C-alpha cells in the first residue's frame, strides 16, 4: 500500500478542519502520488488544533517508515505540531520536519516536490521557498534573456557553455496555470538537469505559475546538466501538445 506513495508525506495542520481538507485537495490535485493528511480543527470540529488529530496524522504518515513535512497555519497549530513531535519517539521524530511556510502555497510546492521523489529536506526547502515566491517583485531571479521575445518556436541549440536552449509557444487556452505547471515540474523531476523557463526555476511550480504565461506566449527554455537536451526536448514536446488541454 505504502509503495505507491512518494517517500515524503505531508500533514496539514490548520485551525479549521475544512481549511486543512481544502488545502489537501488543492495540493493533491497537483501531486496525486503524495500522501497528504489533513489535521484541522478540534476534536469536536471547532476552530483550533487537536493534539490527537495531529498525532494520529503524523503516526499514520510515518507508519511505513516514510518521512513527513508538516505545514501549519496560525500560532497554536505550530505549538501543537511541536508538542506532538516532543511526545513522538526520537527515531520517528527525526523523520519529521515542521515547515516555516505559507499554508496553501507551501503545501502545493511541497506536494509537487515530494511527487518527484525528493527527500524530506528537499520537500521542506520547497515549502519554505514558497513564501519568497510571493514576496516583493524582484525576489525571483529573472533571466535577462527573458525580455528578449523571439519570433516563435526554435529548435534546441547548445551554447558554448554546454547549456541547452530552445523556445516554444504556449498553446493551451488557459496558459501556464496550476495544472500544467505541476505537470511540468513532475515531468522534469527524473531528468538529471537544471531547467529554467523564462528565467525561473522549472522545478518550482509556484515560480512557473507566477510567470503568468498565457496562450501564445513564447517560453524560453534553458537547461544545464547531463540530461539537459533530453529535458528540453521533452518539455518542448509537452508544451506543444498543450498539456492535453487542446
Amino acid at each position, binding site marked *: 500500500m505504502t509503495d505507491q506513495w512518494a517517500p515524503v508525506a505531508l500533514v496539514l495542520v490548520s485551525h479549521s478542519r475544512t481549511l486543512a481538507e481544502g488545502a489537501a485537495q488543492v495540493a493533491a490535485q497537483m501531486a496525486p502520488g503524495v500522501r497528504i493528511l489533513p489535521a484541522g*480543527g478540534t*476534536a469536536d470540529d471547532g476552530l483550533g488544533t487537536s*493534539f490527537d488529530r495531529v498525532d494520529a496524522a503524523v503516526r499514520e504518515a510515518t507508519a511505513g517508515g516514510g518521512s513527513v513535512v508538516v505545514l501549519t497555519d496560525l500560532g*497554536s497549530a505550530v505549538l501543537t505540531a511541536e508538542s506532538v513531535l516532543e511526545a513522538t519517539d526520537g527515531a520517528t521524530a527525526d523523520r519529521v520536519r515542521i515547515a516555516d511556510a505559507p499554508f496553501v502555497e507551501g503545501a502545493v510546492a511541497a506536494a509537487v516536490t515530494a511527487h518527484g521523489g525528493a527527500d524530506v529536506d528537499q520537500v521542506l526547502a520547497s515549502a519554505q521557498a514558497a513564501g519568497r515566491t510571493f514576496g516583493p517583485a524582484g525576489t525571483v531571479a529573472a533571466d535577462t534573456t527573458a525580455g528578449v521575445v523571439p519570433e516563435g518556436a526554435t529548435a534546441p541549440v547548445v551554447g558554448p557553455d554546454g547549456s541547452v536552449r530552445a523556445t516554444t509557444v504556449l498553446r493551451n487556452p488557459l496558459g501556464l496555470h496550476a495544472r500544467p505547471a505541476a505537470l511540468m515540474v513532475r515531468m522534469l523531476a527524473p531528468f538529471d538537469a537544471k531547467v529554467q523557463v523564462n528565467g525561473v526555476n522549472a522545478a518550482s511550480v509556484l515560480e512557473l505559475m507566477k510567470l503568468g504565461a498565457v496562450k501564445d506566449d513564447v517560453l524560453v527554455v534553458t537547461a544545464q546538466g547531463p540530461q539537459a537536451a533530453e529535458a528540453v526536448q521533452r518539455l518542448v514536446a509537452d508544451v506543444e501538445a498543450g498539456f492535453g488541454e487542446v
Partner: protein
Amino acid sequence: MTLDAAWAVDWVRRSAATVDEHRDELVELDRQIGDGDHGENLARGFRAVVAKLDGLDAPPTTIGDVLRLVATTLMSTVGGAAGPLYGTAFLRASKAGSAAALDRDGVVALLEAALDGIVTRGRAGAGEKTMVDAWTPAVAAAVDAADHGAPPSQVLAAAARGAQAGAEGTVPLVATKGRASYLGERSAGHLDPGARSSALILAAAAQAAADAD
C-alpha cells in the same frame, strides 16, 4: 513538610473550579486582544482532566502521574495555544515531580520546569505580554521564599502572589507574541488572559497546599 499526590489532585480540581468560575472574565480578556476562546478552551480542558481523574480505578501515587495526566489531557482538549503551552508546562513539571513527595526545593524545581516548558514552546521572553510574565515572577518569588526556608505551602503562596502581580503588570505591555501581537500598540491597556489564567492556577496550587498543612 512535603507535598504529595493528594495535593496535586486537589490542585488540579481547584484549578478546574477556578478556571470555570472565571471563565467569562477570561473570555472577555481574550476577546479584547485575542480570539476570545481562552476561557472556554481552558474550562473545557480542565473539565476533561477532572473527568479523567474521576474515571481512574485507583488514585495516582505520584505528583508526576497527576501532572502527566493533566498535560496529555490539556494538549488533546484545549484547541488554542493554551493547550500546547499548559500541556508542555505540566509535562515538564511532571518530570520534575516524579518523586512521591516534594519538599521546598522540589516545589521550586517543579515551577522552574513548568516555566521552562512555556518558554520553550512559546518562544516568548519576559515582557512580551504572555503567560511568561506571570510565571517568571512566580518562579523568582518561589526561589526567594525557599531560600528563606519557607515550607512548600509558603513557597507556593509566594509564587501565587508573584504570578498575580506579574499578570497585573501585563496591562501596559504591548504584545509581541501570540494572537494579541497582531494588534500591535492597541494590545496595551489590557490584562493578558494567559497571564491571568496562570495566576489563577498558581493560586489554586497555593490554596491546595495551605489546606494540606
